């Protein structure tokens, strides 16, 4: 096996037993990127020279015992909406195509402190608005399992790069499913942490009450290691949670006996692809055979989650994206008559179609005359959704279901109907609305050999339990070991 095919924990073992070096690993992954990146297009920026230089530094630190993190020496990549000091951070938009942050995001700094090696910045849907990475200003990313298909979105580059071994792990961001859905489409593990547990300082804001950064990894063990590195309170994020952050690797136990798993019947009824349903039912059987108690129940408000989510996220986005005015940073229209014209032209030329559509929806929903009907109403529905989950978690430890209603779709398939794209979020958005943690793990393949993902939703701050369920499933199945051809 090549070094680039291994997991972070496997590489860490090789490093600590001096069977390889940070430089060797980095060269291996960079070599892989050279081999396949033209076909897949996961990256917007590749930091080849910087990565090799850093690998030399990190290797020295490993050799003199200073690099203590289990992620030391591991090459990784970041979604391009996560600020990296002195390295272009574009959000896959013309608006920020030349933007170079003067500071490191909290997570970039934390990973730096853990002696990881930054390979580059990953492709995404523009400003995280989308479910296919097709709206990137730069290029499309291909799904490594089938190059005619999308990798999902908005963290499509992150998911594709992990699946294609163009990075050992990645960080993405998730506002309505943007880590989980692409992880599901690309057959990798993805996690959205409890809201507030990973600092948003340096994450380019889309919807502030929904956004969270999280890992995309080759297996659940790696996911736990990454979570340990990035979770924690941060003074620079006023929505950061002061809580006890336990060691996530304590969740890596192969045991689900007595675990109460609830499956919402609404998840398995209409709108779900038959093969996806079959894979989820089989996964439930796996859990049952391992001693978990699995039961169907009703989550009646699930159908209201998508409209509530899109109202809230569009409203927050319209507010957050008001800062892009061509003045302090970002694109400025070359020709304009006065200040107002400059704003209008800058924003109309700098943003893509989907971004403008969401800003318009958000502006409309917040405008006088409609604020009560849409935004306030959506915030009340949010309370009901939170209560719906709370009630469910009185009876169950984990809620299980599909991550997406289908496997990866073809490029252009959802182009003509934006609503169609939004409906693909049916299982993921409620989780962001309620601020809960969720994990997606590969649980099967369809007849076209496309990955299927299973989503596990937990109570707030119950990441360890989710990781335990995911780890147990992984230890007793082999889906995560199948490799994409790409």
């Amino acid at each position, binding site marked *: 096996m090549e070094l680039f095919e291994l997991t972070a924990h496997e590489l860490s073992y090789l490093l600590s037993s001096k069977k390889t070096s940070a430089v060797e690993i980095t060269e291996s992954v960079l070599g892989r990127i050279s081999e396949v990146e033209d076909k897949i297009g996961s990256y917007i920026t590749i930091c080849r020279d910087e990565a090799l230089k850093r690998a030399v530094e990190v290797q020295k630190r490993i050799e003199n015992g200073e690099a203590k993190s289990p992620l030391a020496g591991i090459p990784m990549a970041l979604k391009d909406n996560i600020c990296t000091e002195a390295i272009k951070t574009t959000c896959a938009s013309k608006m920020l195509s030349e933007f170079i942050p003067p500071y490191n995001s909290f997570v970039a700094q934390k990973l730096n402190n853990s002696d990881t090696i930054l390979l580059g910045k990953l492709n995404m849907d523009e400003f995280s608005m989308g479910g296919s990475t097709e709206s990137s200003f730069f290029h499309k990313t291909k799904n490594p399992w089938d190059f005619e298909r999308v990798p999902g979105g908005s963290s499509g580059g992150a998911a594709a790069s992990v699946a294609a071994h163009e990075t050992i792990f990645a960080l993405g961001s998730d506002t309505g499913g943007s880590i989980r859905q692409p992880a599901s489409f690309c057959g990798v593990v993805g996690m959205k942490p409890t809201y507030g547990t990973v600092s948003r300082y340096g994450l380019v804001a889309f919807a502030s009450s929904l956004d969270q950064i999280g890992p995309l990894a080759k297996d659940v063990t790696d996911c736990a290691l990454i979570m340990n590195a990035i979770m924690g309170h941060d003074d620079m994020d006023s929505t950061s949670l002061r809580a006890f952050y336990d060691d996530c690797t304590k969740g890596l136990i192969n045991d689900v006996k007595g675990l109460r798993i609830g499956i919402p019947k609404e998840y398995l009824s209409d709108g779900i692809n038959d093969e996806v349903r079959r894979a989820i039912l089989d996964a439930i059987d796996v859990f049952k055979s391992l001693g978990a108690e699995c039961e169907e129940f009703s989550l009646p408000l699930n159908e209201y989650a998508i409209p509530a989510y899109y109202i809230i996220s569009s409203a927050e986005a319209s507010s957050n994206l008001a800062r892009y005015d061509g003045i302090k940073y970002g*694109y400025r229209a070359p020709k304009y008559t006065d200040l107002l014209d400059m704003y209008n032209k800058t924003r109309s030329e700098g943003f893509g179609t989907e971004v403008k559509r969401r800003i318009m929806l958000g502006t409309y929903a917040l405008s006088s005359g409609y604020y009560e009907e849409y935004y306030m109403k959506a915030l009340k529905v949010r309370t009901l959704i939170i209560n719906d989950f709370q009630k469910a978690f009185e009876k169950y430890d984990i809620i299980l279901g599909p991550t997406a209603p289908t496997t990866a779709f073809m490029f252009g398939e959802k182009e003509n109907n934006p609503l169609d794209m939004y409906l693909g979020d049916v299982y993921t958005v409620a989780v962001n609305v309620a601020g809960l943690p969720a994990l997606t793990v590969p649980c099967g393949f369809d007849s076209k050999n496309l990955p299927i993902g299973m989503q596990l939703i937990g109570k707030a701050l119950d990441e360890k339990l989710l990781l335990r369920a995911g780890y147990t499933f992984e230890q007793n199945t082999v889906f995560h070991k199948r490799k994409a051809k790409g």
Partner: protein
Amino acid sequence: MKIKIDNIKNSALLARLIFSDEEIVKLTTEMENILLFFDKINELDTSNVEPTAHVMNLTNVFREDVQKESFDRNQILSNASSHQGGCFSIAKVL
């Protein structure tokens, strides 16, 4: 529920976005469909429900009003399309 084109034009004005006449027509149809879908939330009775703006129910997060180190001015200006004399330069406001 038909959206009036005037409402769309007003939103565009507020959002500082300009659209061609064709784009406005297309956008109006798209938004109409999406907003119709949004209307679904009106099926729910929320008369006695408090809105949740933030899931964590955080109260004010303060710090002491003490000056801390900030960024180097040149660093901050480096991303601007135009600057002069250590300031951002823009078109006349008034």
